[in-house]
């Protein structure tokens, strides 16, 4: 009888989940990563934006509801703006409130950028909120938030 090649050690949570006949995503690792708390993320954002109120709208945040691979979760951000000399998006910051280091990326734009649009892939350690904050040339701030589930699937149908 052949045993699983990992039979001699206590499996990681990831291994355990995969073994269950269901999927597990790579980022679900044991020992558990320390995660930022929501309060830490709030503090970090306060340090950056000085507690200024943030408007809603303007940002279109494309993220999968459920990540297919937590190591490389696609994100696409589009901010509505004329991108003129007097009215443009200065920067977009992305935070992931369940990662050990919640600040994922910051994009800087100029009117020459033409449009405020960016795509990348990021690692997400677990199910969490991804928050994008856009800083406009006027100083106004906008934010958008989406939850991404980083977990196992059902034993699909």
């Amino acid at each position, binding site marked *: *009888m052949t045993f*699983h090649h990992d039979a001699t050690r206590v499996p990681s949570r990831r*291994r355990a989940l995969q*073994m269950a*006949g269901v999927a597990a995503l790579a980022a679900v690792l044991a020992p558990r990563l320390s995660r930022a708390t929501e309060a830490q993320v709030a503090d970090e954002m306060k340090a950056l934006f000085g507690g200024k109120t943030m408007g809603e709208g303007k940002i279109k945040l494309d993220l999968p*509801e459920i990540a297919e691979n937590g190591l490389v979760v696609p994100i696409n951000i589009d901010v509505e703006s004329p991108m003129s000399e007097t009215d443009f998006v200065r920067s977009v910051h992305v935070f992931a409130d369940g990662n050990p280091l919640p600040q994922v990326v910051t994009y800087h734009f100029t009117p020459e950028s033409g449009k405020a649009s960016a795509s990348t892939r990021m690692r997400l350690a677990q199910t969490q909120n991804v928050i994008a904050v856009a800083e406009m040339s006027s100083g106004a701030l906008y934010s958008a938030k989406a939850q991404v589930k980083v977990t*196992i699937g059902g*034993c*699909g149908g």
Partner: protein
Amino acid sequence: MISRRDFLAAGTALASLLAAGGAGFAQAVDTGKLTEAELLRFGTPGTFTILHLTDIHAQLMPLYFREPSVNLGVGAARGLPPHLTDGAFLDYFKLRPGTRDAYAMTAQDFTALARAYGRMGGADRMARLVKAIRAERGADKVLVLDGGDGLQGSWSALQTKGEDMVKVFSALGLDAMVGHWEFTYGADRMMALKETAPFAFLAQNVRSIEWQEPVFDAARMFEKGGARVAVIGQAFPRTPISNPRWMIPDWEFGIREEDMQKQVDAARADGADAVVVLSHNGFDVDRKMASRVSGIDVILTGHTHDAMPAVVEVGKTLLVATGSHGKFISRLDLDAKDGKVTGYRFQLIPVFSDAITPDPEMEKLVAQVRAPYAAALAREVGRTDSLLYRRGNFNGTFDDMICDALLKERDAEIALSPGFRWGGTLLPGDPITFEAIANATAITYPACYRNTMTGRQLKDVLEDVADNIFHPDPYFQGGGDMVRVGGVGYAIDVSKGVGQRISGLTFLKTGKPVEADKSYTVAGWASVAQNVEGPPIWDVVERYVADTRTVTVTPNSAVKVTGA
């Protein structure tokens, strides 16, 4: 050769059950009407006719398939079809207990009704119905569409990597299909099958990871009855999560709602009179999608195996649910003209194998594709004293048998078995053939692992799978049922949030709580990890059944459900 059953005799059987004090059969006298002509009876034909089959899981022969008696809806879907079972289902759709529809669509009085009404499905019976409707309407007015999970689920499909089913679907005159389990033959095999098939394989929501290029054609325009009918494919969006991602490493899925809207708009711009989505999203996901994507006339739903005798309307979109395993064919006639659908008639046609004459050509083809495996399929391994079925959110007796096999044959304390919704039902007294075992286990990643897991890890597994089924937002659900457990019991509150649903995990052998930090020996199968080692599940189950000879499954009371 199966002879046609005399349904008056069936009526008599029910009458005698009633006389013997059996409940619920008072209305069963109408079984005398069960003829092919009656099954094919339809109202006014439309501009064109859609015939929909889905989730037949490569079942070529008629079989028993018991619908679930537990199928809970959460969030907005709570208490709505398809999350109604037994009496509630019958009440909602105004059906009577003991009737052919009650037998076909619910679990109520299943064993008695199965003995009266017989097996359902069979490719030769489906072919007979399809041909009859084509003859009635004219081939230029009929569109035959399969909603996926058609090429997987039987021994011959597994051995031929889907080829037997491509032959059958070709002979059936299929126009297009979508996919889910098809992808578990691997990306290369999937593309090879697609290249050889005379029908279209459509999926708007599959992209190459690197370049985000479409892997399949998103849609195809058909001319039927003078109308332009756009069919857009939607593959199972969670395939790389629910099934091994390593088998399709370069493909990315997802619901891709905005891309769906673009496809609908493109179809309209191309002059479509009707826009049909051939979907493997699952019913609740389709219901949500219908409320958010505009301009879809029809969604032919799949994946969640729901059978409903009426269309569900969401705004202007019609949702059709055709069940599974070849038990049904849906007929939907649309009146379509000048870019608009102005009317429809719908019939969920139950495929009663004893009432329908097999189509001789399909019968021959089925015998031919099964011939190389005939001896293996017919091998009687043991018998069952109990009704063995799969469906139900938390357990099924067939799965209980699989868990018992895992515990015993792999000498484990705890067994885990995936909550697949496919696999036939066996009646008390039936033989357990190798075919019946394969019908519930024939997958491309069948290895039975044996490992250790702590109590905490076990709880994590249950919580994560539970969230996949009971997340209130259908876009966060993945389909399938709860992972089946052997050796442990638990309580679940389906109304709670992620990580909060499972409590009272109990190790059944001792009656003591499962300890978070203690390690337990766990056996299971269908791991989505790569390079898993262990014997294939069908060998493990066969050994267990052969040793046991007559299988008896006691009702499972190890899972306590609240919050429904």
